[in-house]
């Protein structure tokens, strides 16, 4: 980000300056500063576990890894949204458990169809999120406290809903299929091809729109990096997962959520306003943005995504019980977002950090299990990884601040 500051008294953004190519490296550093450390970290973690256990990089184990992080990653996208506002949602774990219970009870005990049950679960998550967001904005209670209260209350509601048996087993084929379906190779490869075509199309269209508008093209390095990432990763992932049972449907769902919310955040007014409120709420208000409305909407989405995560987790575990959404579910969802590079202080982050952060946490947990390490070690290593990630982020921020560019 060594952008030369404008010299005083120069004749302005003349046509020459205006069409000047942005320095490629500058662009990459600025855009990817958040996600580069986590990607390096992921490679290191994979390297360590692969050297300790040859099964870590096997198709079977990586398929397990994907299934393990699907619920966490989905919930973490909601946490990213909330963190972008500079708020926090401590209730996502409890909401995921309660929403899953709503689905299971409707489906198993009241005979509702799978889709109705799932829709009800997501709707209840959204309603809870909306309530918490409205409460926090209406009464000016910090979201930390409102959602902490929610965490306790909805855990209680889960126990109450599950009743004396304390567990509901789910057999419905549709619900079970969410995490239990593996796509045949031709669908996997079609999806990979679609993704590869989509990135080319998107970059091509963007370049054409920019040149038509007479604007400087984005740097070739940045465009090339994005295309190369998709063209390398998509076929590699499909080929690898086909070595086991095929691409899990859960991965497609998670990617769909991440890509969808990435678009929402970067390419829509709503997303722009989320960043604005998280960056400077007063400035956003003066610009006519209804900051409170944005807050309520974000908490609603966070609740809905928590519910989606709960549904995915239930589909994998085939049951909802008293510990659903408890334990480390909440902390993992928040840690994933932060490890992925989303700032705790608002205004900085991407939907992709939910995926990369979940991959880091999932890899540590999965690798420790492979090495047959007890939970005690797992928790300590995970804690260390979180601390490391946040420290790297803080150091990077301090470095940038010193250079006069926060």
């Amino acid at each position, binding site marked *: 980000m060594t952008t030369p500051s*404008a010299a005083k008294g*120069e004749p302005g*953004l003349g046509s020459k300056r205006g069409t000047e190519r942005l320095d490629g490296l500058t662009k990459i550093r600025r855009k990817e500063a958040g996600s580069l450390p986590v990607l390096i970290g992921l490679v290191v973690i994979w390297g360590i576990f692969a050297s300790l256990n040859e099964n870590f990089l096997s198709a079977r184990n990586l398929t397990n890894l994907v299934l393990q992080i699907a619920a966490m990653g989905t919930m973490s996208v909601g946490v990213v949204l909330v963190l972008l506002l500079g708020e926090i949602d401590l209730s996502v774990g409890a909401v995921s458990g309660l929403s899953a219970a709503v689905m299971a009870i409707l489906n198993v005990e009241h005979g509702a169809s799978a889709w109705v049950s799932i829709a009800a679960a997501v709707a209840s998550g959204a309603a809870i999120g909306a309530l918490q967001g409205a409460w926090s904005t209406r009464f000016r209670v910090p979201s930390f406290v409102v959602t902490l209260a929610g965490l306790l209350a909805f855990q209680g509601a889960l126990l109450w809903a599950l009743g004396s048996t304390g567990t509901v087993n789910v057999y419905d084929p549709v619900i079970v299929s969410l995490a239990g379906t593996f796509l045949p190779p031709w669908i996997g490869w079609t999806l990979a091809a679609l993704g590869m075509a989509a990135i080319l199309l998107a970059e091509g269209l963007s370049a054409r729109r920019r040149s038509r508008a007479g604007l400087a093209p984005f740097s070739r390095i940045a465009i090339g990096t994005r295309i190369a990432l998709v063209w390398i990763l998509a076929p590699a992932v499909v080929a690898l997962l086909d070595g086991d049972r095929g691409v899990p449907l859960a991965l497609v769902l998670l990617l769909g959520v991440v890509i969808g919310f990435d678009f929402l955040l970067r390419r829509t007014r709503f997303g722009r306003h989320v960043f604005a409120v998280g960056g*400077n709420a*007063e400035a956003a208000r003066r610009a006519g943005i209804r900051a409170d409305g944005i807050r309520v909407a974000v908490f609603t989405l966070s609740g809905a995504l928590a519910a989606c995560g709960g549904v995915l987790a239930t589909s994998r575990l085939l049951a909802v019980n008293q510990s659903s959404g408890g334990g480390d579910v909440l902390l993992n969802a928040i840690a994933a977002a932060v490890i992925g590079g989303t700032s705790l202080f608002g205004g900085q982050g991407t939907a992709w950090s939910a995926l990369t952060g979940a991959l880091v946490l999932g890899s540590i947990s999965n690798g420790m299990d492979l090495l047959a390490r007890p939970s005690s070690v797992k928790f300590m290593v995970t804690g260390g990884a979180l601390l490391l990630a946040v420290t790297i982020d803080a150091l990077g921020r301090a470095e940038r601040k010193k250079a006069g*560019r926060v």
Partner: protein
Amino acid sequence: MAADLPLLRLRGITKRFGAARALGGVDLEVYPAEVVALVGDNGAGKSTLVKTIAGIFPPDTGEMRFLGEPVRLRGPKDASALGIATVYQDLSLCDNLDVVANLFLGREDVGATRALDEEAMERRALAVLRGLNVTLASVRVPVSALSGGQRQSVAVARAILGAARLVLMDEPTAALGVAQTKQVLELIVRLRHQGLSVMVISHNLADVFQVADRIVVLRLGQLAGNFATKETTREQVVARITGAEAADSRIES
């Protein structure tokens, strides 16, 4: 200029905050393409007056006319609908967003698909900045990466991006160094060249004498002087600000 219809005309504007009288009947005109400097000691009512014009503090009594038409501002939206744009002292920029995003904050262009039309916004942003003679290495850097003068320029560009006719600036050079102050003063001159009127609060009389066509002095919530810059001296203005002259001459003309 005096023959023109004033863009803004205030008559007997008063404003109280509880027992404290902030404005005690202020009369003021701002003509098209005129730079008016508002000077006065702390607590003289400068900020209150500007906020009244910006629609933030509706006046208690008094009349306000915009292009001859009586207007009543109930909020900042009414003011911006008239073409009165305010550049706040703290600039009200989102540091984490880039220049284009800040310029269009709250009024983003969207395409047919409801997605942001970044190209259209960037093109208009470049045009506005070029019109103001503002030099930036890129309009895609976060505002936090800009210098104080550049940030001020972005804030001004944002203010005039709508169809602004009067730009209100509260202490635009207060936090700036010499070179950046020069940039901002050039910006003000530029706005006047584009036919906009500017009302600027400043404590720095050197700046005021450099850019203002007229200098309006407020003292204790009342008009204490209204000078054409060319026909006055620093001593006269300072005397009115401090009230040293108040005994022998009331408001002139």
